[in-house]
């Protein structure tokens, strides 16, 4: 990033102040220079997951307004529609006020207020008993929080493996697909080189993931006239401004991408040099069908993968800088027949099943378009190369005078992720990027530190065996490299409540939060005692199959006891899930708390350097609420968890702020990387600095380190970068990161499925393992497509989040809900005409799982086989501070009702979680529907409807009129 003035993203000459910004002498009495704030606090936004820097202006003790922090590497001064509406979130009438203990039946919303001491005592007693007997009986799942490094560590110290955050139902396919392939991924792991790219492909985005950076980037591309191609069934948002919109059929992106690869291979338009240097394309793969090592890499005694040296005609360490590896041919090494990875790639994708003509019908994209896009990709990558005049040294010590780049970049997110074939589709996109030589090169896709990491990264998941009063050996979540790393018992049964890292979801890097309620209810694989959740609306828009999920939360056994015995829930607002808790721990708003956006967690680095950030209280809570992280730390101390207490049993950390500064995960490495060391002079690694938080506050709430020019690209093999990464603790050794086009870990699972190795899947799982643990990306139809009668359910149904909403949060926001308080089902004109539907009709949207009623809106900008709606607008009456007549509870609808949380019964009669078979990612977008016009008397209101929640004690009814800002003016004018 250039340090040259002016600051911020919107600083082109036509966005600057007037050359003379003194007020003209108009004489109309307008006060052109009112005082804006008494003080300005710089902190981090939490209106969605992007974590932009914000300046909060406080006037007369109230938040006057919030704008983007111009220095912040994430948003560079801009702010989104949600960010500016933060005031209304902060002053939401749905804010919880005090800890609550359930008094009525679960789900009624009947509570009594209790003191914090009582709340903590109840939790401590319950959790303590669990820890003394069977720690697995605590399932601790958090939602969209940004403190997973703390919460995971807490679970580990408690001794339960049953921990995860919301990643399993969000985008684990992207994370795992990327981390197992290139050691990085999109969003928090990497970004397009917005300043240099000339051709940008955007696949299925969720517009709250990296939203401001993408918007800033798109603005740059538009200003430069770079081409934007979007592949998305819906033509909204970013897709609306694409130069080329490809309205693909949902779930077929993988096929489309593999057809592009087919075309590129056929024409010889791949970057061979790049493949040899940075990938395992040359590594030899054993080809001995039936053998225990079939499909594994040929390795030397030290375990190094071997390649075939085409000059020396002998095997050679594939990573050796002097090697001249072959990419083709069949060779024999140590008596094993083997071929290079690339030979397998060429054979698979040159097959006519991946030709544009073969896939066009299925994708709903013409073969001509696929060929054109392939040609454009090749043209820009190979004919419009970039060369930056910056010398750098690669991992082997070879100096390069310039940095060469291929200016094609890609970004993908939820549309890829939320299908049961998402993992392989994501791998296919990375394969395409790598074949074009566009990963971490100028103009391409760039890693954000601490990525790239080895593919897959280091630590494995822990918690196979648990003992009372005993912490886990490590963190509950990690990356498996083969069946030995699975969390299954000797019979192959899952040891985690969500069945992550079991044969049903081997690479479940983020857990499967979406399966916890069902599994806990069914006692499968075992019953639990307490479900503790934070900030995830699992009784509504965060669960599939909502109606059934609500039933499971309230279901009782024969003895009349709840099947899920105890639920502790922490949230700042009266969401639909609060009513199902036995104990409610009220959280603060984002302006009242400490947080750390840590490199140990979900970082906010920029491709040009690592960064992290904090939140700090900028206003005091006016309610008896506490930040959940501080509560968790106190619970840890009350329970006496190792790491949370000193030797004398006293609390180690006063609160979260104290933890952020003083906690060290490994010596010298803590939650924050900036201003470490007693004098604040160190970054990354260094002693605890007691003044660290103040240093962050003084710097605007964040820390950012700028790379030197020679560290910015080719990070997977850049010595200057790799040395820095080791110093910072990002990677253990300064070794190159090799892109795993062929995934050996996956082949290990396949071999187990074929009967090799000591950890064996149950027989019923062998077929799935064989089919889906393919070491090379492939495409298969999303599961529901194969399971339902497509004649009966001819349409795909998708949801998108409006850019001005974040999940369920926006509806309590007086400003945001005005923009959207009823979601329509968007239907293509042609489709509607075929079905005899007119604009504004009310329809039943029916899937095999149920039906929901909503109102349609006809459009052209959607794949004709697809209908879609805005997500999480529909609300349950009584929640979120909304009045009974609010559109959200009457006309808005929730598509979740008709998305099954399980697959149809498989051949062996088993129903799996409705998830990707590799990672366990929730397959939200697989659902198939039909739409039927409802009867006249059924029009005008949504169904299903649910009983209204009672309001918690001392909840004020929401106001009839909001005059926010009037007080500032009155005070201002009184002073004049």
């Amino acid at each position, binding site marked *: 990033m250039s340090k040259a003035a002016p600051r911020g993203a919107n600083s082109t000459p036509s966005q600057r102040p007037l050359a003379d*910004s003194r007020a003209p002498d108009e004489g*109309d009495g307008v006060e052109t220079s009112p005082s804006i704030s008494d003080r300005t606090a710089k902190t981090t936004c939490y209106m969605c997951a992007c974590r932009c820097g914000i300046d909060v202006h406080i006037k007369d003790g109230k938040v006057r307004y919030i704008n983007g922090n111009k220095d912040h590497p994430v948003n560079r001064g801009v702010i989104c529609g949600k960010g500016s509406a933060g005031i209304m979130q902060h002053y939401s009438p749905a804010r919880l006020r005090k800890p609550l203990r359930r008094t009525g039946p679960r789900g009624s919303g009947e509570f009594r207020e209790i003191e914090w001491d009582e709340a903590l005592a109840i939790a401590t007693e319950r959790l303590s008993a669990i820890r003394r007997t069977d720690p697995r009986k605590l399932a601790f799942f958090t939602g969209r929080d940004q403190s997973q490094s703390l919460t995971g560590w807490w679970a580990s110290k408690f001794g339960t493996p049953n921990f995860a955050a919301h990643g399993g139902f969000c985008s684990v396919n992207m994370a795992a697909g990327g981390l197992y392939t290139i050691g990085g991924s999109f969003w928090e792991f990497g970004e397009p080189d917005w300043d240099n790219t000339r051709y940008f492909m955007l696949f299925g985005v969720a517009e709250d993931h990296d939203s401001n950076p993408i918007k800033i980037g798109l603005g740059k591309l538009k200003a430069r006239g770079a081409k934007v191609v979007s592949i998305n069934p819906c*033509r909204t948002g970013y897709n*609306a401004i694409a130069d080329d919109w490809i309205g693909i059929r949902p779930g077929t992106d993988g096929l489309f991408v593999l057809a592009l690869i087919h075309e590129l291979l056929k024409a010889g338009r791949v970057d061979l040099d790049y493949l040899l240097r940075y990938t395992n394309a040359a590594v030899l793969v054993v080809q001995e069908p039936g053998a225990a090592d079939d499909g594994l890499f040929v390795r030397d005694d030290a375990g190094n993968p071997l390649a075939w040296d085409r000059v020396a005609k002998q095997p050679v360490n594939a990573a050796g800088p002097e090697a001249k590896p072959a990419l083709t041919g069949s060779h024999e090494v140590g008596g094993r027949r083997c071929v290079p990875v690339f030979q397998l790639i060429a054979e698979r994708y040159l097959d006519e099943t991946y030709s544009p003509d073969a896939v066009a019908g299925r994708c709903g994209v013409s073969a001509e378009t696929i060929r054109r896009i392939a040609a*454009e990709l090749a*043209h820009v990558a190979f004919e419009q190369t970039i060369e930056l005049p910056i010398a750098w040294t690669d991992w082997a010590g070879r100096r390069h005078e310039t940095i060469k780049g291929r200016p094609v970049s890609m970004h993908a997110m939820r549309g890829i992720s939320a299908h049961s074939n998402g993992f392989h589709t994501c791998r296919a996109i990375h394969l395409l990027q790598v074949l074009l030589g566009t990963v971490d090169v100028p103009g391409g896709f760039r890693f954000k530190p601490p990525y790239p990491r080895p593919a897959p990264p280091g630590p494995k998941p822990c918690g196979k065996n648990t003992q009372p009063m005993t912490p886990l050996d490590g963190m509950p979540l990690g990356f498996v490299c083969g069946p030995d790393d699975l969390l299954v018992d000797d019979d192959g049964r899952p040891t985690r409540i969500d069945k992550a890292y079991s044969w049903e979801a081997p690479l479940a890097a983020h857990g499967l939060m979406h399966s916890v309620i069902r599994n806990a209810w069914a006692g499968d694989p075992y019953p639990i005692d307490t479900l503790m959740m934070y900030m995830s609306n699992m009784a509504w828009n965060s669960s599939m199959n909502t109606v059934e999920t609500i039933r499971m939360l309230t279901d009782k056994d024969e003895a009349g006891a709840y099947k899920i015995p105890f639920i502790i829930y922490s949230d700042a607002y009266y969401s639909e899930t609060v009513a199902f808790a036995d104990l409610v721990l009220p959280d603060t708003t984002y302006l009242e708390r400490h947080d750390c956006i840590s490199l140990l967690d979900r970082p906010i680095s920029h491709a040009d350097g690592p960064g992290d950030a904090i939140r700090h209280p900028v206003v005091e809570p006016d309610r008896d609420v506490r930040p959940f992280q501080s509560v968790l730390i106190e619970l840890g101390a009350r329970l006496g968890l190792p790491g949370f207490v000193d030797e004398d049993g006293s609390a180690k950390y006063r609160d979260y702020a104290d933890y952020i500064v003083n906690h060290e995960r490994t010596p010298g490495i803590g939650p924050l990387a900036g201003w470490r060391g007693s004098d604040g002079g160190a970054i990354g690694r260094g002693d605890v600095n007691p003044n660290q938080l103040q240093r962050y506050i003084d710097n605007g709430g964040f820390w950012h380190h700028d790379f030197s020019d020679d560290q910015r690209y080719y990070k997977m093999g850049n010595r200057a970068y790799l040395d820095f990464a080791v110093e910072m603790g990002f990677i253990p050794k300064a070794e190159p990161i090799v892109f795993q086009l062929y995934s050996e870990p996956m082949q290990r699972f396949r071999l187990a499925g074929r009967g090799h190795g000591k950890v064996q899947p149950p027989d019923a799982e062998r077929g799935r393992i064989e089919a889906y643990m393919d070491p090379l990306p492939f495409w298969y139809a999303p599961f529901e497509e194969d399971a339902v009668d497509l004649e009966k359910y001819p349409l795909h149904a998708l949801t998108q989040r409006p*850019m001005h909403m974040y999940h369920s949060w926006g509806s309590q926001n007086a400003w945001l809900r*005005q923009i959207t308080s009823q979601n329509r089902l968007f239907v293509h004109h042609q489709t509607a005409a075929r079905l005899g539907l007119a604009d504004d009709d009310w329809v039943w949207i029916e899937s095999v799982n149920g039906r929901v009623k909503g109102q349609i809106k006809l459009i052209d900008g959607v794949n004709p086989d697809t209908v879609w709606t805005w997500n999480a607008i529909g609300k349950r009456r009584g929640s979120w501070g909304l009045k009974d007549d609010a559109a959200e509870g009457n006309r808005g609808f929730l598509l979740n009702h008709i998305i099954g949380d399980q697959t149809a019964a498989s051949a062996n009669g088993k129903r799996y979680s409705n998830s990707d078979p590799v990672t366990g990612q929730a397959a939200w977008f697989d659902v198939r529907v039909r739409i039927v016009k409802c009867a006249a008397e059924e029009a005008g209101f949504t169904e299903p409807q649910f009983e209204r929640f009672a309001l918690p004690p001392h909840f004020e009814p*929401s106001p009839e009129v909001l005059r926010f800002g009037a007080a500032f003016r009155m005070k201002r004018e009184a002073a004049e």
Partner: protein
Amino acid sequence: MTCLPARTEKKLGLVIDLDTCVGCQACVTACKEWNTGGHMAPLTDIDPYGGHVDGVWFNRVHSYEHTTELGGRTVNFPRSCLHCEQPACVTVCPTGASYKRASDGIVLVDEDKCIGCKLCSWACPYGAREFDTDVGVMKKCTLCVDRIYNDNLAVEDRVPACVAACPTSARHFGDLGDPASAISQLVEERGGVALMPELGYKPTNRYLPPRARSERAAKVDAPALEPIRAEGGFLGWIDRMLSN
């Protein structure tokens, strides 16, 4: 006085790039947030949590589908006061509450004089004026007159809130009366248009049209890919490439 100034020293206004606007509503809430505590405070919201919510906003974003014989495009369209040169909203005002500033051309409402007759909103073809039923007066975009000259803000922040917020850089601000200004040149270069020119209000603000399928569209003139036809096909080609 509701007679219009014969000329204004500057013609301050906005330029909105429809080629770049993704419809994210950032400008909408940034405007609401600034102005609800600003010159025309508050921007009242009636029934904010109920079924008939209706608030005052100075800037709103519509979505359209524009379909021509060349294909369709979704267009997100921010709509706010255009600070016209011939604003009938000003001349119809019976009280002098509405006026156009002679210095910079900003159209404002002096709330203390407004009787809430609403005629100005009838006279505005663009729907730029919104009535605050709670206060009983008409309100409208001030072009952030309390930001762009505000001594209490850093100089770099003295731009309208919507321009500062816009994440895609789709909004521009400046003197459209000065042909040499950066914003005038942007309009010139991109063929910026006025809305409803036929009504003769002479809006100051301009909209930059979408570029797709125009001569300004981003294009890649790529030749079609030719399959490798030489001996050994693709794998043979690799061998030859690597033996070089």
